[in-house]
């Protein structure tokens, strides 16, 4: 096989090619590293990576080839991928997109990182992201904005924008992401990828730098559902180090991809198809849903009346939890420290004032206010009550449907700078994704075609622990459509 074709192979094809001996891990790893070096770096690059671990990756690839020769390779041995820079990697810089952690070398691996290492997978580097995962455009990264490979003037989405751009540009076959309010699904949609946010508690949060602990969840970003299944197989695990990890058996998600969809009922919430929804977006969704009907599904209109309360509730719960989580960044034990502090108060305030960017400061302040004496009931308790209403809506809906579908975003990728002047306008970007995190449900973005040359995604919302069914449905959809095969021009 010629080397030029390597980056067009899917994760599954790479795994099979390694097993068949068509190429070595060192060969394919070197190819992707060269591609990252030439397309991602410099002023004209995508800027999707914060750290490129070339030396380590080649050493891991060599070890993987030896492991394969010794006869104890797994499906993942020698397969290249990348981690979002939110996962702690032992001995490798982990910034979370922030100046605050600009020099942070974790002394341990996140559980998700450990899971990949145990299989002998090859991590090529750490991908760019919105600072501390707070953002929907990847413009809040201290390490600069990421360009969307589909149109370099548009944003790739966020917060997992680096992972999305890297996979879309074929710099890696797949990457990890995290999703607190849409941070896997929205960039996956805007970059034409298949991205899955699993049920809360499915993947361990140990070593995944916390933003809003009751909402954060890791998941795969890949080119198709089959590859996402291969990713989730290794990412999902029960972990005693994460007190919110749930002890549920992890099925082999790749074995149920070909189940029939006959008789499955799809719920279409009327709140996800408002009058105001862009006509082209509504048409793309209708086309996609018609394909599912051809596959034997039936469609039913449902209502999730509390959906409109999701954004207001989220902007209490998430900032409140972030203000607590980020309080440990104080310039004492790790991270940025200001010059010549005159006392401890000054050390804390200036280290944090200098280390955090604007969006992070805004959310810390909103959270601090919402949790302060006299306001706790009016904000935090109220938001937690709304959260119950949102969950109850979904529980009721799943009594009559197997899967809920709608758009991931109101529109395709917007221009850089277009929404950065108004935080509230940016928050509206997540209008269709946030409720799923508040309810702890799994959500997925599946490519559904393009509007004016930019990709859009169909969102699938599953019941708790229905990741296998979601991947099955997405895979069957991808057998009869080719949206997931589309690539940015010149790739």
């Amino acid at each position, binding site marked *: 096989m010629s080397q030029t074709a390597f980056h067009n192979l899917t994760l599954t094809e790479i795994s099979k090619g390694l097993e068949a001996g068509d190429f070595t891990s060192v060969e394919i790893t070197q190819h992707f590293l060269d591609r990252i070096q030439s397309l991602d770096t410099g002023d004209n690059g995508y800027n999707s990576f914060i750290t490129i671990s070339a030396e380590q990756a080649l050493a891991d690839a060599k070890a993987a080839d030896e492991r394969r020769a010794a006869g104890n390779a797994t499906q993942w041995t020698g397969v290249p991928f990348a981690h979002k820079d939110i996962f702690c990697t032992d001995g490798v810089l982990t910034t979370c997109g922030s100046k605050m952690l600009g020099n942070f070398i974790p*002394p341990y691996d996140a559980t998700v990182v450990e899971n990949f290492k145990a299989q002998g997978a090859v991590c090529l580097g750490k991908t760019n992201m919105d600072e501390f995962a707070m953002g929907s455009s990847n413009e809040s990264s201290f390490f600069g904005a990421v360009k969307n490979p589909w149109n370099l003037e548009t944003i790739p989405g966020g917060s997992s924008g680096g992972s999305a751009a890297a996979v879309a540009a074929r710099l890696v076959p797949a990457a990890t992401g995290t999703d607190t309010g849409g941070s896997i699904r929205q960039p996956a949609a805007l970059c034409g990828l298949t991205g899955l946010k699993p049920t809360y508690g499915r993947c361990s949060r140990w070593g995944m730098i916390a933003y809003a602990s009751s909402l954060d969840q890791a998941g795969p970003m890949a080119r198709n559902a089959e590859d996402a299944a291969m990713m989730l197989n290794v990412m999902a695990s029960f972990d005693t180090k994460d007190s*919110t990890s749930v002890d549920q058996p992890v099925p082999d998600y790749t074995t149920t991809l070909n189940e029939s969809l006959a008789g499955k009922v799809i719920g279409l919430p009327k709140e996800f198809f408002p009058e105001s929804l862009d006509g082209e977006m509504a048409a793309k969704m209708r086309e996609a849903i018609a394909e599912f009907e051809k596959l034997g599904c039936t469609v039913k209109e449902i209502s999730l009346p509390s959906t409109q309360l999701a954004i207001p509730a989220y902007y209490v719960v998430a900032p409140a939890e972030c203000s607590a989580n980020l*309080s440990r960044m104080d310039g004492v034990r*790790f*991270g940025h420290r200001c010059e010549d502090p005159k006392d401890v108060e000054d050390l804390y*305030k200036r280290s944090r004032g200098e280390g955090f960017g604007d969006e992070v400061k805004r959310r810390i302040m909103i959270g601090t206010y919402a949790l302060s004496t006299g306001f706790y009931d009016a904000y935090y*308790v109220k938001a937690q009550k709304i959260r119950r209403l949102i969950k109850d809506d979904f529980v009721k809906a799943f009594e009559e449907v197997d899967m809920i579908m709608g758009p991931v975003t109101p529109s395709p990728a917007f221009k850089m700078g277009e929404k950065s002047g108004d935080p509230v306008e940016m*928050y509206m970007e997540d209008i269709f994704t946030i409720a799923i995190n508040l309810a702890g449900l799994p959500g997925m973005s599946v490519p559904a075609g393009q509007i004016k040359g930019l990709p859009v995604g169909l969102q699938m919302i599953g019941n708790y622990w229905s990741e296998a069914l979601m991947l099955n449905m997405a895979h069957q959809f991808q057998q009869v459509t080719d949206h997931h095969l589309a690539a940015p021009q010149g790739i």
Partner: protein
Amino acid sequence: MALDRSDVQNIADLARLAISDENLDKYRTELSSILDLVEQMNAVNTDDVQPLAHPLDAVQRLRADVVTEENQREKYMDNAPAKEAGLFLVPKVVE
């Protein structure tokens, strides 16, 4: 909810964030508009609703009280901005 400059200064102090004087107004406007968004929650009556703390209503797991991690003091302190003799250094706290 419209905040004034002293509210913002007070919140920033509680959050231990140094905010420059010229940025106070910017944050005042932005935080006020976020709070306006948040207050849309008040449109619905939630008197009889139980707050939801964990999406799956899970409870804390317990484990046996045994040592599971070894101490790696030097490795853990490698990231410290200022340290001496195995201790983190901070400005003088007690006179």
